[in-house]
């Protein structure tokens, strides 16, 4: 039974395979064939799987550029010597490294090399008949026998054939594919009737679907990745984001993305809402229920009011927009000594802590003169939504809501070093060519403002105003901003479809039992009795095979009895 067409074709070292590998003399083709057979063998697949599991581990220990770029920088500063070695081993990019790729590519080649011939074979098996009934059913592990009497005046061969008819009907009803293999009497041997039945083709179908779906997942990820982009943008209350490359704070396009042809739409942040647990709650102050209320516009359509929440991104023309972060964006105006406003903007402040102690940078490039000389001005701002004082005397924020908002400013003058055309981080100030005029180590105290207040800059350079947003019709005294993450992932729906297919295939491959059952009726030489044999053979894991044979026997005997309640007696 090693190779009937309905057997699943399996690698030669599959536990169910009965064949021994014959080693022919190998030529070049022979070696290639040998290599291919090695690659597509179960053992290789298994070793590659285990290698894949092991190779994935370093990526959870060493920080990865893709998931944790700051961790990589941190590692570099802490272990400058190791960094070079790790870098050469691609340990910061494990999942795109040569060695990791080699393992999964080999694994998938092995998988395809195994699945393709099996699919072809299975296609044939699906259209072939159940195999011939084995001559000696009693040699099978799951086997049962009973003897019935032939009713008076009936030919034993007819009775045997009829008994098998009943079995055939019963098996077909149970979803088996059935085939009769009756043998006419020959010489001394009586006529033997038998039915061969097979079920569970879905097991192999599921197996193939599972493996093919995994290839589908890989292709969707690979191809989808080239058409995918991810970008970040900051939008302040009242401000808008228009989807074009220059409006992104950063953007990561896939290989085939045309950044000049992004879908045109705009998102305006009307307001941002958040609730904080009351001060002094257990577990510290927690922020939640973040909601960015926005108006979205697409060409040729009216604006739509939508809300972006955590876990609930909005969909814009195939892009998904996520709410990733939020903060305060104090409105600050700087006037020069002549009273001319040389800077006025909502400045997004970044906050690393739960109570929103935040920091922001203001750069005034033009319009400030100091004793007739043009100066550039840099302000480092610290914003405390609920200002309080630590034991050390330093200011801190005690609560993330706007209970006692205070802004302090350090003032630097000199050269901002932005004239060289080098792109600069808006969240960092290069003070290497500047002099500190207020705050920190300078002799003047930091400027301190509350919403609506104006203070003088040192050296008579002008004034700074912390605008009160409520005075301008805002809900709160200080504006807020949100950081949005904008994604287009063409591959994701396909990945999901293939993953679900894989799961369905897996269910069939693991739980549909593939088995063969046979019923054979052999009349005794004297024509008075018939021996009924029932046997089953599991193809692959099938814990219920013994039960299946027992059920078959019981059902068959019941139908025999029902038909001839008086005559048939089971001995």
């Amino acid at each position, binding site marked *: 039974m090693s190779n009937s067409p309905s057997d699943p074709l*399996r690698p030669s*070292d*599959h*536990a*169910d*395979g009965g064949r021994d590998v014959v080693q022919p003399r190998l030529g070049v083709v022979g070696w290639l064939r040998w290599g291919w057979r090695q690659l597509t063998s*179960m*053992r290789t*697949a*298994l070793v590659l*799987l*285990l290698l*894949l*599991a092991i190779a*994935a*581990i370093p*990526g*959870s*220990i060493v*920080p*990865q550029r*893709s*998931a*944790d770029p700051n*961790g990589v920088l941190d590692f570099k500063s802490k272990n400058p010597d190791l960094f070079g070695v790790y870098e050469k081993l691609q340990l910061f990019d*494990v*999942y795109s490294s040569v060695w990791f790729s080699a393992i999964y590519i080999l694994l998938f080649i092995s998988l395809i090399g195994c699945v393709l011939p099996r699919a072809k074979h299975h296609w044939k098996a699906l259209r072939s008949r159940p195999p011939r009934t084995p001559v000696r059913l009693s040699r099978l592990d799951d086997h049962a026998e009973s003897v019935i009497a032939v009713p008076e005046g009936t030919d034993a061969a007819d009775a045997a054939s009829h008994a098998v008819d009943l079995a055939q009907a019963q098996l077909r009803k149970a979803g088996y594919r059935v085939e009769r293999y009756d043998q006419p009497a020959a010489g001394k041997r009586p006529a033997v009737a038998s039915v061969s039945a097979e079920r569970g083709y879905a097991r192999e179908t599921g197996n193939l679907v599972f493996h093919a779906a995994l290839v589908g997942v890989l292709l969707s*990820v690979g191809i989808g990745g080239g058409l995918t982009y*991810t970008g970040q943008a900051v939008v302040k209350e009242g401000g808008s984001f228009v989807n074009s490359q220059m409006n992104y704070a950063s953007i990561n396009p896939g290989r085939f993305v045309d950044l000049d042809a992004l879908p045109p739409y705009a998102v305006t942040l009307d307001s941002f809402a958040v609730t904080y*647990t009351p001060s*002094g*709650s*257990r*577990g510290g102050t*927690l922020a*939640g229920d*973040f909601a960015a209320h926005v108006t979205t516009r697409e060409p040729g359509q009216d604006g739509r009011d939508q809300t972006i*929440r*955590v*876990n*609930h*991104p909005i969909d814009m023309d195939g892009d998904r927009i*996520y709410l*990733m972060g939020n903060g305060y964006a104090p409105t600050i105006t700087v006037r020069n000594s002549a009273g001319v406003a040389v800077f006025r903007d909502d400045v997004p402040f970044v906050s690393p802590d739960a109570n929103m102690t935040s920091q922001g940078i203001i750069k005034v490039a033009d319009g400030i003169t100091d004793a007739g000389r043009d100066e550039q001005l840099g302000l480092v701002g610290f914003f405390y939504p609920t200002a309080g004082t630590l034991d050390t005397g330093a200011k801190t924020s005690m609560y993330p809501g706007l209970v006692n908002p205070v802004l302090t400013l350090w003032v630097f003058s000199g050269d901002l070093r932005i004239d060289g055309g080098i792109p600069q981080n808006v969240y960092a100030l290069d003070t290497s060519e500047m002099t500190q005029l207020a705050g920190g180590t300078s002799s003047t105290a930091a400027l301190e403002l509350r919403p609506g207040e104006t203070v003088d800059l040192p050296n008579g350079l002008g004034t700074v105003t912390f605008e009160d947003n409520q005075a301008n019709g805002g809900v709160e005294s200080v504006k807020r901003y949100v950081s949005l993450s904008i*994604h287009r*992932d063409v591959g*994701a729906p396909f*990945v*999901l479809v293939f*993953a*679900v297919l*894989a*799961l369905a295939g*897996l*269910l069939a491959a*693991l*739980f549909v039992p593939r088995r063969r059952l046979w019923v054979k009726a052999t009349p005794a030489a004297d024509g008075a009795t018939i021996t009924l044999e029932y046997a089953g053979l599991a193809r*692959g*894991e099938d*814990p219920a095979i013994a039960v299946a044979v027992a059920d078959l026997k019981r059902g068959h005997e019941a139908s025999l009895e029902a038909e001839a309640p008086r005559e048939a007696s089971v001995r």
Partner: protein
Amino acid sequence: MPEAGFTLDNLSVLLVWTAIAIYALAFIAYAVDLARRSDLAAKAKDAAPVRELVGVGASGASGSSITRIRAEEEAALAAVEARPSARPRYLWARIGTSLTVLAFVFHVAADITRGIAAHRVPWSNMYEFALTGTMLIIAVYLVVLLKFDLRFLGTFITGLVAVLLGSTAIWFYTEVVPLQDSLKSVWLVIHVFVASLATALLAIAFALSVTQLLQARRERFALAADEAGAAGERAPVSSGPRFLRTLPSADALESLAYRFAIVGFIFWTFTLIAGAVWANDAWGRYWGFDTKEVWTFVIWVLYAGYIHARATRGWRGTRSAWLSIVGFGAVMFNFTIVNMFFKGMHVYSGLS
């Protein structure tokens, strides 16, 4: 809600400790059972006339040791698969199971009161996840007992749960706090629940694999003893704890372990997919090689390897059992070490 006095959460903690204490007692009862059951089995067999139950080599007593072992194993398998009413009446095992059920009732009560105290499903930080996860391990074990007599795993299951629950209550306890925004999702309920179920099933598969290894060793020794006996040499001492005499063959244990492992694997696959769907909503990508994602993937691949190994010549049996053991080791590692010490986006342990 900083109320003074006795809160629902305090009650929950009290119930947890009660459950732990009873699990510990169940563990002791099950351990006594393991120590005694081989004697009981031997006595039962002597008392009853040799029935057709022992089909192979019926005159076992005088036969070679492997034949005797095979007969024992066959009888043990029949007992494992017997209906609850037809099972051997091991007194201490019954005490163990009764205590487990009792502890489970307290455990469920603890879980529910915690959920009510928190106004949400009680599995959103490490403490709650451990509370619910261990509860599901026991639930799965008790349900499985209806179909298979796996009470010989009782020491393992109650021991594991008592230790996990105890360390959870000591080190992972976190007060009730509101849910983080990213956890406010129906996927929290699905993803975490299915992950816990998978863990429970894989735990049982693991325990069966360990027993399988012990039994395989015993069978090997018996074979060696027979060979030595045939050659007229002194037989090596028979090995392994004596309760092995009441357990099915290594082969039977293996296929049982496999059946639990594949159900666990299906659940794990679902956990992976559900997690990816959730991540796509919460973080804007369905997969990002976050440390927890990596370990979930590693575990998935290990069990995929286990299932392949079962179908690979030369890997069936002891080798594949080791894969199941390593796989469950990774599951435990993922739950404990990765949650506590690895940096990543699954930072919901509530520990700091």
